């Protein structure tokens, strides 16, 4: 029997069904985000088996935590990839496999079972993020790449880069705010600027 078709539903609606222990809904989320999740986990972990573990753990967390998802606070895709990223970072720290250099271009879209259409979409999305990252000042880009893809904590970054912790915090904040602006277009109202830094 073919699987119930949920393709017409929004991500948020599919998460709502998942929260009611609907296994078809969970499978739908996996179809939509499994490959992006794996690409993200692989970029952080640089190990296919560990990346698969991270994705599996994350989808278990999605299954168990779907009822706590609050659509007013985040897009479902952001929530899902946040869970994936956190597990990947936890694993990389546990495995102590962290590296300084980001993966070379192209590694993430090669191979695998996704359709050509998925792969093209992923490549476009990745190029968009890379282009935005490339427009950041070098120090902001470095802080964000090392934290997000390298799994370094802010304290480790301060130590390794020989900078005060407050400087690292400012770079991460300013870099992320700028990235958001570049990826989303200008925000309404006042320009969004850092408000508070201490430490």
């Amino acid at each position, binding site marked *: 029997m073919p699987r119930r078709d949920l393709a017409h539903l929004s991500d948020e609606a599919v998460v709502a069904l998942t929260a009611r222990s609907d296994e078809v809904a969970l499978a739908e989320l996996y179809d939509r985000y499994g490959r992006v999740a794996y690409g993200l986990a692989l970029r952080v972990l640089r190990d296919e088996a560990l990346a698969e573990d991270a994705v599996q753990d994350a989808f278990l967390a999605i299954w168990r935590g779907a009822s706590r998802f609050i659509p007013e*606070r*985040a*897009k479902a895709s*952001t929530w899902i990839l*946040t869970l994936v*990223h*956190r597990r990947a*970072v936890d694993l990389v720290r546990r495995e102590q496999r962290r590296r300084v250099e980001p993966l070379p271009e192209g590694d993430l879209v090669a191979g695998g079972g996704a359709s050509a259409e998925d792969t093209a979409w992923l490549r476009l999305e990745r190029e968009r993020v890379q282009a935005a990252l490339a427009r950041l000042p070098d120090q902001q880009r470095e802080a*964000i790449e090392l*934290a*997000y893809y390298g*799994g*370094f*904590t*802010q*304290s480790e*970054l301060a130590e390794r880069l020989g900078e005060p912790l*407050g400087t690292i*915090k400012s770079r*991460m*904040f300013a*870099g*992320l*705010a700028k*990235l*958001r602006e570049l*990826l*989303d277009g200008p925000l309404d109202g006042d320009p*969004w600027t850092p*408000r*508070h*830094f*201490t*430490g």
Partner: protein
Amino acid sequence: MDPETLHGLTAAYALDALDPEERDAFEEHLAGCERCRVEVAELAGAA
């Protein structure tokens, strides 16, 4: 950790760049701080 320090952890939290103790302290803070919740949501959209 004092509140001003906690307010300054939004970006590091969005990047998963906090160590476990900092993350726990920040999540406790986040539950009661609307300002940081909004900020994390905005930053997480970019991360």
